């Protein structure tokens, strides 16, 4: 790396002692680039074995990459922590201005440990960390209000990122998230609860430094090449136009869209919540992450009349994409867009992962239908498929639980199903609630074997759609493809490139871009580093008790029709056993 690059600076913050220090960790950034690669090492260093994820000593790590602030679409921050949701590797990525702000503030990573006695928020600016009293912000029911207060009180307009949790994080809901720039999330695996356990309400970070490159002419040329592809390629345009929501119709058509807790894989009534229809009737604005020309963030405006005053409306901007329409729409039988947007809005306000919440609501509805839980368990709320008002009530109740059942639901569908039954239709993989892809066995093997049990670990659903739907592959062949893809993605998330840009940044391109920042790493070498990072993650997972043989698979996946017709117990178990033989 370049001699003066501040990427190697790691900011260590101690919330117990209200102290901070900066260390140069060139050792880590030269070996593992940044982002996921460096964050994994910092997690292994900073998180003692077997620690309760909500213990003060548990670290929160944020890391950005060398390409952040240098090339477009490299604006992702990797958050790493021990997950209170799975007790396993906690990793989630977010864009917004988060990565640019961390890099421009002069850091490659931030490590937060300890716990404050009173609620605080942090400001990180000009090489200093300030600990601000957030007592007054604690408990505000709409998480966007504390963000507004931070926005009004702190400087750095246009250059800053504002992170914050909602009441779900404060109340330690294990799938609570951290929101940045109102619409981007460190969504999965419960970073919000880790913030909450430290009484950390949020943080504001900003800066605007220079990053030196070693060949100015080459830099501009390569920049232009990447920028041109990003703004002109049809792949990126897809993310901008209708966005990922375009997949609702496509997956419904091939019978791969989970409907009503995956009792079905398509529905005849999804048209109003299709990406095209929402774009036509409700889309108000598209916005972008910092330093990304694509603008894939879709905001709808929800207009709700007040009952007590004619012509008086509440208008709320609501961010949506494929995963939200699936989890808070089709999965719970909501096919009316206004009702969908209302449910998304409350999920945003309290600050929980939308996919986890949707899957829990869907499982709960089936439990209720089967009379495996009573109205008393739900504290008097009657629920049925598609009833958004009831679901809104339930979301609020899960965040402030009044019954043992709702309390169990605040810890995830696996936890709740272990206590109340219904495991065969509790749609979790590695204790993480599923994403919206009933595409075939590769999708499920992807969830099961991915280091963080996310669909984005390896994009298994794509193997189903590109390959398995047409040709036969063995489970071993599928797993080989998954592992190869996951290794490549470790590099993307280490240099901090958005996975949407994976078509632009192949390893050759990453290698060329890194050369301008003083790294001499061939694409082959990068692939090796990617594999190593993946194994390092498994080192953490195994250390914390992950075992392939303990993976629970809900029977439902074998029962509902899928596009490949190849989801069998044999295929899934062969895949898991093969992965175990390679990784264990």
């Amino acid at each position, binding site marked *: 790396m370049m001699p003066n690059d501040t990427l190697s600076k790691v900011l260590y913050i101690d919330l117990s002692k209200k102290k901070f220090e900066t260390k140069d960790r060139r050792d880590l950034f030269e070996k593992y680039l940044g982002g996921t690669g460096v964050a994994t090492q910092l997690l292994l260093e900073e998180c003692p074995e077997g620690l309760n994820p909500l213990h003060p000593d548990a670290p929160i790590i944020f890391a950005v990459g060398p390409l952040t*602030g*240098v*090339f*477009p679409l490299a604006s992702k921050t990797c958050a790493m922590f021990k997950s209170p949701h799975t007790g396993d590797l906690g990793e989630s990525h977010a864009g917004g201005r988060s990565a*640019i702000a961390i890099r*421009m503030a002069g850091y490659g990573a931030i490590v937060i440990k300890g716990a404050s006695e009173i609620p605080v928020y942090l400001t990180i600016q000009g090489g200093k960390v300030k600990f601000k009293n957030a007592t007054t912000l604690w408990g505000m029911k709409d998480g*966007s209000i504390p963000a*507004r207060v931070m*926005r009004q009180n702190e400087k750095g*307009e*246009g*250059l800053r990122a504002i992170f914050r949790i909602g009441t779900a994080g404060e109340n330690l809901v294990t799938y609570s998230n951290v929101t940045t*720039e*109102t*619409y981007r999330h460190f969504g999965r695996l419960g970073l919000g609860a880790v913030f909450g356990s430290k009484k950390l309400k949020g943080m504001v970070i900003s800066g*605007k*430094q*220079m*990053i*030196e*490159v070693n060949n*100015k*002419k080459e*830099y*501009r040329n390569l*920049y232009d090449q990447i*920028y041109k592809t990003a*703004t002109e390629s049809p792949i990126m345009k897809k993310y901008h136009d209708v966005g990922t929501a375009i997949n609702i119709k496509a997956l419904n058509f091939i019978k791969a869209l989970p409907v009503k807790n995956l009792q079905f894989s398509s529905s005849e009534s999804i048209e109003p919540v299709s990406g095209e229809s929402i774009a036509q009737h409700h889309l*108000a*604005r*598209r*916005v*972008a*992450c*910092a*330093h*990304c*020309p*694509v*603008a894939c963030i879709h*905001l709808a405006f929800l207009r709700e009349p007040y009952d007590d005053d004619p012509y008086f409306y509440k208008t709320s*901007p609501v961010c949506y994409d494929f995963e939200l329409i699936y989890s808070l729409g089709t999965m719970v039988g909501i096919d009316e867009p206004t009702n969908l947007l209302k449910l998304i809005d409350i999920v945003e306000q309290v600050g929980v992962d939308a996919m986890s919440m949707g899957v829990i609501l869907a499982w709960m509805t089936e439990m209720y239908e089967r009379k495996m839980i009573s109205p008393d368990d739900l504290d008097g709320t009657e629920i049925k498929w598609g009833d958004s008002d009831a679901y809104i009530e339930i979301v609020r109740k899960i965040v402030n639980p009044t019954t043992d059942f709702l309390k169990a639901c605040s810890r995830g569908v696996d936890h709740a199903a272990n206590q109340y039954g219904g495991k065969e239709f509790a749609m979790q993989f590695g204790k993480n609630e599923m994403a919206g892809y009933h595409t075939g066995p590769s999708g499920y093997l992807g969830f099961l074997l991915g280091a963080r049990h996310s669909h984005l670990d390896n994009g298994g659903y794509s193997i189903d759609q590109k390959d398995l739907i047409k040709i036969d592959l063995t489970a071993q062949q599928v797993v080989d493809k998954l592992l190869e893809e996951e290794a490549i993605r470790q590099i993307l998330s280490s240099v901090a490139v958005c996975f949407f840009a994976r078509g632009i940044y192949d390893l050759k391109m990453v290698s060329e871009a890194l050369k301008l920042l003083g790294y001499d790493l061939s694409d082959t070498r990068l692939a090796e580093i990617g594999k190593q990072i993946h194994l390092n993650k498994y080192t953490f997972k195994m250390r914390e008790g992950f075992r392939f043989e303990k993976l629970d698979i809900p029977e439902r996946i074998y029962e509902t029709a899928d596009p490949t017709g190849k989801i069998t117990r044999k295929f899934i178990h062969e895949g898991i056993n093969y992965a175990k033989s390679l990784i264990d």
Partner: protein
Amino acid sequence: MKLSVKDVMRCVGCQSCMFACSRRSGNAGLSNTCIGIKSTGGISRGFTVIVCRSCENPPCAAVCPTGALVPKEGGGVRLNSAKCIGCGLCKDACVIDAIFWNEEQNKPVICVQCGYCVDYCPYEVLELKKDKKGVTHDAE
């Protein structure tokens, strides 16, 4: 030629223009940018695009105690960096905050109306305007 905001409502807040402006120096980052994009009180309300309007009687030059900011014919100013003492009065004098600051050098960054940023706005928010005389034009 004059940099102008053609349609602020099309801005998505990607800040590609800011990075482009800073990249004129050949390096990456944002230290040298003299165009600013910020939300208008939250991203959902859209964005404010701040560009130098090349005032014909520039207030920034009027307050400069050392004559480092020199008004140009037809509007705008030129920075004579050697004369600049980094006092920041020019920054305070600009009511639209179009004087940006290079923290590393403690000097203002002044838009030279080169239009490099325009080529990196994918949504046609910016344009480089030319009037009949080829000099100045009112901008948004």
